């Protein structure tokens, strides 16, 4: 089943200078391998093309079922210099909630925030299609 990240994981971003970190935390241990396999640093960098201008590193925290992405050049030159309305990038992580993942059917029960129609369907409504 193809779903957006919002149903699979929760996210939080933080700022330090011109670098943003985006923590992605699986809603259940069973969903964590899906994240680890599909949410690679390269794909996250591609996803944020035009916003993140530097390298993206991924750190795995298996004990917390979490990935931490560290994106350099993500905050328009830094909090004080940025012309972005959200100059701290506090909402930057929420863009990633639209990232699409393939979740094995047997894990559909682990997903959050799907209504009954989504749950019964072969595919959910992908974003941007």
């Amino acid at each position, binding site marked *: 089943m193809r779903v957006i990240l*919002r149903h699979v994981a*929760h996210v939080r971003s933080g700022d330090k*200078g011109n670098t943003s*970190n985006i923590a992605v*935390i699986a809603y259940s241990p069973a969903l964590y391998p899906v994240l680890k396999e599909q949410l690679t640093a390269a794909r996250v960098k591609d996803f944020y093309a035009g916003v993140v201008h530097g390298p993206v590193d991924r750190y795995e925290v298996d004990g917390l079922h979490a990935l*931490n992405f*560290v994106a350099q050049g993500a905050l328009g030159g830094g*909090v004080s210099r940025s*012309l972005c309305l959200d100059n701290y990038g506090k909402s930057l992580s929420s863009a990633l909630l639209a990232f699409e993942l393939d979740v094995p059917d047997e894990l559909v029960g682990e997903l959050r925030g799907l209504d009954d129609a989504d749950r019964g369907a072969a595919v959910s409504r992908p974003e941007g299609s």
Partner: protein
Amino acid sequence: MSGRVIRIGAGAAWWGDRIEPARWNAERGDLDYLCFETMAEATVSAAQVRARRDPTFPGYDSYLDDRFAAVLPGCLARGTKIVTNQGWINPEGAADRVAYWLRELGARGRRIAAVGGSLLTDRVLELTDTVLEDGRPTSTLRDGLVSAEVYLGAEPIVAALHDGADVVITGRVADPSLFLAPMMYEFGWDPLDATLLGQGSGIGHLMECGAQVTGGYFADPGVKDVPEPWNLSFPIAEVEPDGTAVLTKLDGTGGVVDLRTVKEQLLYEVHDPGNYLTPDVTVDFTTARLEQVGPDRVRVTGIGGKPRPATLKVSIACAEGFIGEDMFFYAGPGAVQRAQLAKRVLEERFRIVGLRAEEVRIDLLGVDAIHGPVSKPRCEPYEVAVRVAARTSSREEALKVGREVDGMAVSGIGMTGKRVPHQDRAREVIGVWSSLVARDAVTPTITFVES
């Protein structure tokens, strides 16, 4: 569990934080310590700029009176000690003010410690070599230099507590150190014991952002629902002598403390989770174990530690020009097309008036202002704001942004909504850079006053 448990509560996560949850923790938290974090990266530089312009500005937290008036009665009744970085650029002045409030409440003979020595503005260019962000020499920051301060650790706070302080008020200190210091003092931890300090500093990291671990910055309806999100309290840590802690909150308040809120906060503003640098210890979050041991109670163990860094981090603030900013609005059928034409008008106008800017950004708020090119609009919005900002070297250039938006009132696009320009539409940019300084170049100061 063996040994005594100490209870540490959070009183603030930033300068503008709510006051009432601090009062609740003071009155109902049965706390041994109440700790306030009130400084952002730019706090010191903003305070320096304000102190130059306004001789009446005392240089400490502008909400100091409100915070102490709210919490002192509860803290005095329970015997709760206070650790806070509300001293900003004048911890000694802040200590005097706290002594005043204590006397007002009839509490005489209390000892207030001011921890200073973090300001390095006069010496920073001699003591540092390179800018961490881009590798250039720190001497290139000389012209715009506003302020520089080193991040002190927990040790001077511990020393102040050993000398009998009831209140410790500091300038720049690393945020987790404010919470780590009471643990080191109460449990007699060796400042070089990386295992204990790693766990304790990790707990401090979880506490320093206040409500961000009790259900704030968290709610997302349908996937992460939070009870009574209008009624959040600040966290309390019940800490055991080995640093193991249960994170919790007051009964009868909104919010939630669970594995999700703790995991999100554990990684907040962290880069390499195995090597989180603080002045006291290098924290390893990768070994953390979290367990829900009751409603709104999460037990945290196993956070690791490695020896502390050989150097201390310095923040260097520099004047880097100005940002001019304004916005105006469209609504109803055709709103986005009108906004796009307005954007084109502004671009042409900036060319005609010769705006000299390092960067100009014109966003459609409601379409792509927050996530820029990553935005995925699902449908055309009913209403939209055109928001324009430019970074310039002079205030005069920055003010051109607002002046061109003024022109949109009668010379712009049909049905433009506009505000009367009464607010300040140009602000100074104070850039913040980082460098490293040798530990032995920094000498914290501790001075006492009595109420």
